[in-house]
């Protein structure tokens, strides 16, 4: 059973929707999630592979990209007993 992230060649996800002149981040909190993740990985609280794994196993197609990142960060910090 492929994980939800392994979508190459899979049909049924609809057309690609493009936002004109999309900015790198849509809101300040997204940039904070990005920077927070780098800092936490940099400090060794978890590593990049653990983060990718956490995103994949906790992701929801209902959530935005950085919402999924934030959920993964929270999950890892909880699992490792940091929060």
């Amino acid at each position, binding site marked *: 059973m492929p994980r939800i*992230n*392994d*979508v*190459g*060649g*899979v*049909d*049924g*996800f*609809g*057309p*690609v*929707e*493009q*936002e004109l002149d*999309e*900015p*790198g*981040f*849509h*809101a*300040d*909190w997204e*940039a*904070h*999630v*990005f*920077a*927070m993740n*780098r*800092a*936490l*990985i*940099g*400090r060794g*609280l978890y590593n*990049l592979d653990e983060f*990718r794994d956490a*995103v*994949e196993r906790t992701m929801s*197609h209902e959530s*935005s*990209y950085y*919402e999924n990142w*934030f959920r993964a*960060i*929270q999950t890892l*910090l909880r699992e490792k007993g*940091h*929060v």
Partner: protein
Amino acid sequence: MSDDHDDSPIAARVRELEAILEEKGLLDAAELDRALEAFAHKASPANGFRVVARAWVDDDFKAKLLENANEALPAVGLSMGGGLQVQRLHVVENTENVHNVVVCTLCSCYPIALLGPSPTWYKSTAYRSKVVSHPREVLEQFGLELPAGTEIRVWDANAESRYMVLPRRPEGTEHLSEDELARRVTRNGLIGTAAV
């Protein structure tokens, strides 16, 4: 970047987690601010635009870029460093007969140092699933119609390897300076979903 959504519940939850981590000594507010500041100013598609413009005017740079992009970048003051791990950058050149397009089917691998944060569509399941099986159809959704004889090459990025497209220099731009040429390049052009 804007502060428009800072009253949203998720923004509040992010602030709350930051505060908890700072209190526990796991995150340093100044360190975070420095990272945000550096990122906001350094990682932008303008970097990729400069690389392309230089390649268009300097054949030696272009040859080196296509052969070993990581070694070519310092000549324009850039590098693939600054991330969490060293990434090999591959620059793939569009020609009269070949058009390149980049995807990360598994997640969202992208040369952030050169292109800034990736657009939402690049990370969408719709794009990631379809561009590998029906690239021509996907490019048409972006308004890019290629001649029937053009070969389309799809490059799947991963944790170690990132890709950037070198678009074809538009015709009639011989008189433009390098800076003017850089302004002709688009983010989608560097991913391959636009011609330039």
